[in-house]
């Protein structure tokens, strides 16, 4: 496993080895805390925002940070802090819905393909691979051009884009499990496909699938923000974080805080999900040793 066994690298690796369990926990915990923070914000945003999101409250536009307006004001003089808190609902909510649909469909199809095998497997894999070779942003653009943008359309489009990846991942895992003896035993016992999937395969792939779900959540947040930034995602008067950047892009030459804070919100969410996922397996591995 450890290839860098030369004398220079032994001391730091041993040091991090004894400390890693604890330290990785902390990093993972920070990630988890930020994710929970945004989840709570998304739920309670209407109660805690200091100003109504649609109301022009500042006399200045692109106002700086101040005591009344924590994150400054936007291109119309609306309070950025309130708008970002409300934006969390759209960014987190739409992404969560899309990732749930994508991973549920992908994993179920993947397990069915792995257990059933044969022509069903080939057909599904070919079709989903073809779907996978359309770049995500492009697919979003084409669909939005065709049917217009609304929140249900966005959720469905985003989930369709990420079903193939989820399918591939789950199928690869399930194929490995499928070759194990206890599956053969279950088959001989006469169990049906549904039982095999639910009771034999799913419990064995649940961990990696959950990690994959987190990763896909990051991709979906990024794609949704990208689409909203292009003006094809969440439509005014509502605004997710990507749309907030788009609205206020005019303030960029002056370095307005209204441009940076929504981006920072996205970055804080995606980076903490990444941190959590990167550190979760490490923690589990350390515990099992």
């Amino acid at each position, binding site marked *: 496993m450890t290839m860098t066994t030369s004398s220079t690298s032994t001391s730091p690796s041993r040091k991090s080895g004894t400390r890693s369990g604890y330290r990785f926990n902390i990093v993972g915990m920070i990630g988890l805390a930020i994710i929970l923070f945004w989840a709570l914000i998304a739920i309670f945003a209407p109660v805690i925002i200091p100003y109504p999101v649609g109301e022009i409250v500042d006399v200045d536009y692109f106002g700086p940070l101040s005591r009344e307006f924590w994150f400054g004001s936007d291109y119309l003089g609306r309070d950025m802090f309130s708008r970002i808190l409300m934006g969390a609902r759209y960014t987190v909510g739409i992404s969560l819905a899309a990732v749930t649909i994508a991973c549920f469909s992908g994993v179920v199809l993947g397990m069915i393909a792995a257990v059933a095998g044969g022509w069903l497997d080939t057909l599904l894999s070919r079709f989903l691979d073809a779907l996978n070779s359309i*770049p995500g942003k492009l697919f979003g653009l084409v669909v*939005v051009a065709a049917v217009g943008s609304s929140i249900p359309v966005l959720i469905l489009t985003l989930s369709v884009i990420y079903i193939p990846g989820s399918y591939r991942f789950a199928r690869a895992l399930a194929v490995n499990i499928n070759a194990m003896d206890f599956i053969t035993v279950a088959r001989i016992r006469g169990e049906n496909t549904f039982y095999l999937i639910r009771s034999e395969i799913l419990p064995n792939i649940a961990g990696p699938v959950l990690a994959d779900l987190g990763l896909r959540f990051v991709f979906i947040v990024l794609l949704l923000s990208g689409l909203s*930034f292009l003006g094809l995602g969440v439509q005014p008067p509502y605004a997710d974080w990507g749309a907030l950047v788009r609205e206020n892009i005019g303030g960029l030459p002056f370095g307005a805080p209204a441009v940076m804070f929504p981006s920072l919100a996205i970055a804080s969410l995606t980076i903490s999900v990444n941190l959590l996922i990167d550190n979760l397996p490490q923690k589990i591995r350390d515990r099992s040793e």
Partner: protein
Amino acid sequence: MNNPVLSLVLSRLLIAVVTLLIVSFAVFFATTLLPGDTATILLGQAATPEAVAGLRAAMHLDEPALLRFLRWIVGLLHGDLGTSYANEMPVADLIAGRFINTLKLAGVTALFSVPIALTLGITAAMLRGSLYDRIVTVLTIGVISVPEFMVATSAVLIFAVYLKWLPALSFANEIHTVSEMLRVYAMPVITLTFVVSAQMIRMTRAAVIETLNTPYVEMALLKGASRSRIVFRHALPNALGPIVNAVALSLSYLLGGVIIVETIFNYPGIAKLMVDAVATRDLPLIQSCAMIFCVGYLFLITAADIIAILSNPRLR
């Protein structure tokens, strides 16, 4: 001897062609899902039913969708991309100049990002676990996990707002001098280079580390070869295939990046054309642009696969 390689490559090409067919099918039907009749939209609400019927017949809209799809595909193969709804110009004329602009942008980006990414990726893998490696890894994960427009806005904030080296978002379409050209290209290229390099560094590092974990490298280590000899004589030649594969795959991230970058910097490329076409619902233009992007993407991932096949010594 050469047969397994040849048949694998041929089957990969065949898959690419089939995929392209499915993709074009998907693109065509996604754009014809448009609610409402195209002829009515073009002529406006006040059009007489006869005029609408006439236009429908002229545009072959009264034919079954499958027939229109075949007509469209045959047109594409003959280089006939259709006529833009918005300004009645042939799509091919609209696209040609823009396409070259985008290719220039992509080419310059590749020219910068490939050497940078390979150097950083390979050295990070060589010095795995060191402070340098950790800094590179954290930076690449940072760039990968933020949206492309944030990389772009950060670049503008740093280079235009604080350092004042470059103009922020205004770009002239006519370029007269070299310095003007540099100014037009600098910001989009910087942004794209960051986005693409981050992917490439990650994949290159993973490819080299995978090679360093093989038994023959351990053998080289045990017989007392120096670290640079292990990397340059034993590991790198074998990692070359995966590395080139990684380069081709990460260049496909250019496609996603270019859409954002051309929009934010107002660069007159094909992605900007497409985003504008979406706003005006100019379907023939959207279809053609989408097909160009899909072909480019498919070309890159197929090339990556074929390189991986060709570089696998077990198949030779």
